[in-house]
């Protein structure tokens, strides 16, 4: 055929919101083999096209919506899109993944990626329908919740099935933890919603009708069949289907992997009660975020009546339920469900929102925030009534919410009075609901994750240390997790290097990471990718792409001024918990984080002082031009 690679359209859409100009560009096949797609391709574009030091909320920032050849409904985990941008919350590299049909639809429309740049004078939304691209006025959508916006766009387009991703009022107000939701799934972390808001972009609707060209159709079909068989027989996949991610609360509480009371402890002892109440009283059914998912871990829930009433909605993941219970010491399950629901309507990240409220509660306890500062709201630990009001204040930037909407790092600098030590974040991103004191690899994944202390890249850490998942990486040099102990620090830095290289692959392929829990390995994905593209790519090459992308994202951050100091994790996170069953466990503490970091840097080929990749490493990865 021509120069096009099978599995790709070889085209990207560039939309300038300044001029309204839409152009279709060809993608260099050499770049595709090196970066594949998703967070890999996005990193390449952002590194090349963004100037150092730009304001993430200025029109100089760009949004890259990236897919990969495997962004297909029939691929296990294929229903995802990755949005890449410079984060207004952290000023660092960021990507945000969203599980929905948006990615596969974009691919069917004939585009491997969409680059959105500039800023529209007035609010708009974009419609992508194969070759028909429209930028439509959206003044009437402003101020509406995300579910209302999605409904209105579908009604206007007369198409109930079109995939739509929107921001809420929080994104419009440039709240730095604002999200974009496709149906009820979020591209959640690092403020993608604020970047869309800064561009006056209320939403994007996408639908496609094209078929993907497959290099070896029979082999491709067989590779998918083989992978699906693994998933269908896998007990972890069955567990996710039955209990979703929320089911992990009980074990994590027991394991000391459940940050509680703004990280004062890692155990609360209430998870079993909270989870059982959620499961027995409020859970309606499970839900697949994209058509064809064999796991369907999503939870559909409802609080039918009372003060904390909600609509029937998808929500309450492990992270969100933990954020609105353990983080803030709230035992009221209805209030926690409502908080998660409201975040999705206003359009803010549940993890950061829970973490910010926990931070505010600690500030309140210590007199940094006073009742009069916050409209007479009682911000005592565990007050369920405070949650919905705090979410509203942050989302609408009202009163103290305007400061808190900046995230805990900036808010603590503004509030001062010692509140910095209550601000638990990495690179400015609020910490999620896993605790590295109880599994030390997590400390290094938290510290070195390019987008900050996030919930996705820690999968490499705790899952390895405590869960004993090897993700099929032992053959590539990972130490067998059954031969190490979760309390050990030595050796973890080295393991994290391989884990990160392997576990970034789903981000590069724009697929769901949970399928690596469900028994699939990077070899399965290499098989599917090879049959689809005709490339003959193996697991080892995917690992190398992973390493290349991690280094390129790192270079992006270094260019922005990040260094070794930004790889540190908060002091509280390293110290013995102040209450709970691990309080007297002497091993539940991070003694030598710097030592673990040195070991990691050495494994990576990074300078121990500056944290910069060495010239040899960059040459090895084909990044010597950077």
């Amino acid at each position, binding site marked *: 055929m021509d120069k096009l690679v099978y599995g790709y359209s070889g085209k990207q859409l560039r939309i300038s919101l300044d001029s309204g100009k839409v152009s279709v560009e060809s993608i260099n096949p050499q770049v595709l083999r090196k970066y594949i797609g998703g967070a890999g391709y996005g990193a390449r574009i952002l590194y090349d096209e963004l100037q150092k030091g730009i304001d993430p909320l200025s029109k100089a920032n760009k949004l890259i919506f990236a897919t990969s050849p495997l962004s297909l409904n029939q691929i296990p985990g294929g229903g995802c899109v990755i949005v890449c941008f410079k984060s207004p919350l952290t000023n660092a590299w960021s990507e945000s993944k969203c599980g929905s049909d948006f990615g596969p639809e974009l691919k069917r429309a004939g585009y491997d990626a969409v680059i959105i740049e500039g800023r529209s004078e007035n609010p708009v939304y974009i419609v992508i329908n194969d070759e028909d691209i429209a930028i439509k006025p959206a003044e009437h959508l402003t101020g509406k919740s995300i579910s209302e916006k999605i409904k209105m766009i579908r009604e206007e387009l007369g198409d109930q099935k079109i995939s739509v991703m929107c921001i809420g009022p929080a994104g419009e107000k440039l709240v730095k933890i604002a999200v974009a939701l496709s149906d009820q799934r979020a591209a959640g972390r690092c403020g993608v919603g604020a970047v869309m808001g800064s561009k006056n972009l209320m939403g994007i609707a996408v639908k496609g009708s094209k078929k993907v060209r497959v290099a070896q159709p029979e082999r491709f079909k067989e590779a998918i069949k083989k992978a699906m068989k693994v998933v269908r027989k896998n007990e*972890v996949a069955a567990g996710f289907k039955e209990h979703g991610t929320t*089911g*992990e609360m009980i*074990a*994590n509480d*027991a394991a000391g992997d459940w940050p509680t009371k703004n990280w004062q402890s890692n155990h609360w002892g209430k998870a079993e009660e909270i989870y059982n109440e959620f499961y027995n009283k409020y859970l309606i059914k499970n839900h697949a975020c994209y058509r064809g998912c064999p796991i369907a871990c999503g939870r559909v829930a409802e609080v039918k009546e009372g003060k904390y009433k909600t609509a029937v909605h998808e929500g309450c993941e492990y992270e969100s339920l933990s954020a609105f219970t353990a983080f803030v010491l709230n035992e009221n399950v209805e209030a926690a469900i409502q908080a998660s629901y409201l975040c999705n309507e206003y359009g803010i990240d549940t993890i950061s929102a829970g973490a910010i409220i926990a931070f505010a509660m600690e500030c309140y306890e210590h007199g940094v925030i006073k009742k009069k500062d916050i409209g007479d709201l009682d911000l005592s630990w565990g007050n369920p009534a405070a949650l919905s009001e705090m979410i509203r204040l942050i989302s609408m930037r009202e009163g103290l919410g305007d400061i808190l909407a900046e995230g805990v790092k900036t808010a603590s600098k503004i509030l001062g009075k010692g509140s910095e030590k209550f601000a638990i974040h990495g690179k400015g991103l609020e910490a999620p609901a896993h605790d590295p004191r109880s599994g030390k690899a997590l400390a290094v994944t938290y510290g070195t994750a390019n987008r900050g202390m996030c919930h996705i890249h820690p999968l490499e850490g705790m899952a390895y*240390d405590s*869960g004993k*998942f090897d993700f099929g990486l032992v053959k590539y040099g990972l130490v067998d997790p059954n031969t190490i102990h979760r309390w050990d620090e030595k050796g973890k830095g080295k393991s994290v290097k391989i884990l990160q290289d392997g576990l970034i692959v789903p981000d590069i392929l724009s697929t769901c990471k949970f399928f690596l829990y469900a028994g699939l390995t990077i070899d399965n994905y290499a098989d599917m990718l090879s049959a689809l593209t005709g490339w003959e790519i193996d697991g080892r090459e995917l690992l190398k792409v992973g390493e290349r992308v991690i280094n390129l994202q790192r270079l992006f951050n270094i260019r922005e001024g990040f260094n070794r100091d930004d790889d540190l994790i908060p002091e509280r996170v390293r110290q013995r918990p102040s209450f709970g069953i691990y309080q007297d466990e002497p091993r539940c503490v991070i003694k030598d984080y710097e030592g673990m970091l040195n070991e990691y840097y050495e494994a990576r080929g990074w300078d121990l002082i500056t944290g910069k990749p060495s010239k040899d490493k960059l040459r090895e990865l084909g990044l010597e031009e950077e």
Partner: protein
Amino acid sequence: MEVKVKLYGILRKYGEGKFDRGDNIIIPEKFPLRDLISYLDIPERLGKICLVNGYPQDVEYKLSEGDEVKILTVLGGG
């Protein structure tokens, strides 16, 4: 001696036919947790967290009469 055992999440399916009375299992004196896990046919490859009477214990821990044992597996993601 007799101990009370509760399995969680995906571990619930293990231990079929090994329980003697309700949640109770009869085991020899000073039986280590490791041996209890193996008696229940819980695969080694799964990461496990064990609480005995509400407190975390390593697999070498030797059980006593009347102990309440909870065995859970950690996924570490989500």
